[in-house]
């Protein structure tokens, strides 16, 4: 059974939530916010999606692999951004002199900070979604047994 009011509301709420989360992520170096808060907002929109559509559409669109790859990919982006510093002969996680820091105040500035913020955002969104899926379908095998 699908609830029409919930579905209609979620069609407005989910894109608005994701847009706001993306705004918080991309302006992490300009305004209050950053990877953890933006990622949580985007993860909350994923949770709203799975709650409204009663996990039927989630089987196709928000698989367990998706959240796992978000989770692992976020950490990988962070570590890779740190290793770039070593490649250029600097310390691990060096920003100044390795990444183009740009003009302070512009959207495309601050070099590694923007990249790492996006990585943390993907990672936290994956964490929220993954914990939700695991706690909800706890103990279920990936192929549906048990």
């Amino acid at each position, binding site marked *: 059974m699908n609830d029409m009011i919930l579905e209609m509301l979620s069609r407005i709420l989910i894109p608005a939530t994701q847009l706001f989360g993306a705004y918080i992520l991309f302006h992490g170096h300009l305004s*209050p916010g950053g990877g953890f808060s933006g990622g949580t907002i985007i993860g909350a929109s994923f949770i709203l999606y799975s709650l409204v559509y009663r996990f039927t559409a989630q089987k196709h669109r928000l698989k367990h692999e998706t959240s796992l790859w978000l989770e692992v990919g976020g950490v990988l982006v962070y570590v890779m951004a740190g290793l770039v510093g070593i490649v250029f002969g600097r310390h691990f996680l060096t920003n*100044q002199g390795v990444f183009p820091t740009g003009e*302070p105040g512009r959207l495309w500035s*601050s070099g*590694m*900070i923007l990249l790492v913020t996006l990585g943390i955002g993907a*990672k936290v969104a994956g*964490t929220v979604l993954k914990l939700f899926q*695991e706690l909800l379908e706890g103990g279920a095998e990936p192929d549906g047994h048990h």
Partner: protein
Amino acid sequence: MTLMVLLGIGVLLVLMVAEMPLYGDVTAPAHQGVMQKYLRDSARDTGAINTIAAIIIDYRAYDTLGEATVLFVAVIAVTAAFYGGYEHE
């Protein structure tokens, strides 16, 4: 005897609190060191006008990497708790 010792410790702690600088006092010793450098140089060093982002992702990026790893380990632990142990049944 124990009560006396505890009371003594309590009086000492209250005296120490009375000696602490006021909340938000800009002349406090804790605000004279690295905080001045962060506020003065963060925009030039990192290109980010949000000083907090400059601190947590540039100056203390290693700390934040550990923070992200804590979340990662938590998720791995939850997943392992739900999926693990079936072969023993």
